[in-house]
């Protein structure tokens, strides 16, 4: 039995792209995201100052011509800090969410599709992970494995995929007794092929919407972990950390909070518009023309 090479396979995504390009809001979201990613990638070239270049006399000055977004208490240029912070936050946001996405979808699809005792066991495991004390888990990770970025993804991924698994499971359970799944069964396709080709593409809608909500919360979780010493170490920083420090001096130096906050919320809005647009695009019922 040759594996199914479907010549027109990619068309689901091709059509999705055609539909997406007609949705102005989604395009705006995509443009903003590409802009942010672009800036992050080019940061080493276009950053006005070194990210750890301190200038203690210039401590915490408001936005000026020299420093467009002002400086932090060490006199470091905030615009550069936000750019470098973007690199970390976006990387962490996308990769950790991807990890959570993959594990969550597979776990949810298998639990939902097979049901019965397997489903009960898998879901009880999810309940156990929900209840475990996250804090101890973090400290242990930090200490036993030392300190590097991969650890951060493991820590975040281990928490985020739980809810994703729940969503995908409820979606798959409703799809399971649809007639086209029974038709695929009557063709004699293997369980795994049915899940891969028929079940998962039809769960993309709600999964995408949830993903666009996960990325910002993951960025904030990264800040909390970095603050504890698990994530990135000073003098590097991320949007979450900048916001965290900015909150403490909210009254004295408001710009330390406002600009990273704008960066994060811009990402969130862009992601949401893109996510809604992508969900509609992947839903064949929305007309292509």
């Amino acid at each position, binding site marked *: 039995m040759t594996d199914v090479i479907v010549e027109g396979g990619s068309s689901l995504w091709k059509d999705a792209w055609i539909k997406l390009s007609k949705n102005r809001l989604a395009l705006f979201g995509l443009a903003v995201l590409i802009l942010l990613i672009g800036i992050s990638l080019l940061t080493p070239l276009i950053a006005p100052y070194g990210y750890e270049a301190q200038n203690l006399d210039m401590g915490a000055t408001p936005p000026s011509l020299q420093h467009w977004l002002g400086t932090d208490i060490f006199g470091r240029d905030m615009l550069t800090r936000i750019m470098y912070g973007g690199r970390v936050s976006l990387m962490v946001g996308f990769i950790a969410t991807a990890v959570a996405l993959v594990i969550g979808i597979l776990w949810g699809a298998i639990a939902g599709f097979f049901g019965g005792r397997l489903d009960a066991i898998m879901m009880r495991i999810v309940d156990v992970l929900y*209840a475990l004390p*996250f804090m101890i888990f973090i*400290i242990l990770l930090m200490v036993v494995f030392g300190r590097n970025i991969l650890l951060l993804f493991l820590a975040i991924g281990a928490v985020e995929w739980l809810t994703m698994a729940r969503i995908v499971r409820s979606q798959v359970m409703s799809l399971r007794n649809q007639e086209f799944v029974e038709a695929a069964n009557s063709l004699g396709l293997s369980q795994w092929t049915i899940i891969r080709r028929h079940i998962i593409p039809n769960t993309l809608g709600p999964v995408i919407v949830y993903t666009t909500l996960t990325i910002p919360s993951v960025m904030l979780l990264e800040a909390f972990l970095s603050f504890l010493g698990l994530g990135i170490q000073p003098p590097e920083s991320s949007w979450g950390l900048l916001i965290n420090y900015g909150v403490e001096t*909210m009254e004295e130096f408001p710009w330390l909070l406002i600009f990273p906050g704008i960066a994060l919320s811009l990402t969130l809005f862009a992601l949401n518009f893109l996510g809604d647009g992508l969900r509609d695009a992947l839903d064949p019922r929305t007309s292509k023309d």
Partner: protein
Amino acid sequence: MYRFAVGRLLQAIPVLLVVITITFFLVHSAPGGPFSADKAVPPEVIKALEEQYNLNQPVWQQYLSYLGDVVQGDFGPSFKYPGRTVNELIVAGLPVTAELAFYAMLVALSVGITAGVGAAMRPNTMQDYLPMTGAMIGICMPSFLLGPLLVLVFGIHLNWLPVSGWGDIPGDKILPSITLGTGYAAYIARLSRGGMLEVLSQDYIRTARAKGLSERLIIVKHALRGGLIPVVAFLGPAFAGLLAGSFVVETIFQIPGLGRFYVQAAFNRDYTLILGMTIFLSTLIILFNLLTDMLAIWLNPKLRQEIRGTN
């Protein structure tokens, strides 16, 4: 219905057992003992202390004796606060955290559902975009930012509400509940809007309208029940999140809840306190998940009969 509840409770016991076991060995393998301190502690003192809390026994023996105690409801003494038992600390902190989580859930549900339903009634108009944009801001606004902001505006500049404490001064429960509840209000707004839009497109809504019922009655009596099912499904994970999230809010508003204890216990390697709280919190989460599942079943008459077995 109760047969279903009993079935789920029986399932909860092995889950709890696994949670206790994993946490126990997780905690004991974390480096740094409960008695190390900034000032150098003479070795003979450490030996004496460990004897008193029988930490010198092999780990699995401690585990078995700990399980023995837990079964009788004794969660052991706290290392960090000599003389205080874990039961005492939890009894002091749990009601506050549960109450905070409850009020936050109240805020989340009331604001979230009102916004969601309002948006669903007139989709793609100002009354839809305004709450939904607000919801998006709510999601992206972390509580460690929203809390201080509310305190500065309402607590200090306008001096309407107390800045901290829980239950000492009237009205001191409002700001913390709003801070903790906002994030979830945003989620619930989006979920209830989706659920309501889906239900409002159903045939039986058209039947209700054809019967000449008023728009308001159709929403409240016919649409709400079906529309809010996705929200009910979300309550389980949301409650777990509220309990975990209360740590930040308790620190900002100086609330004597379990959240801060939980983090401090981890930092102090207060083994019995961590274990005790993990058991309590996970029981609370499991119970709440069971409650929300039963509510979801109760809401849907067809499921309710299938479970109860007799029509």
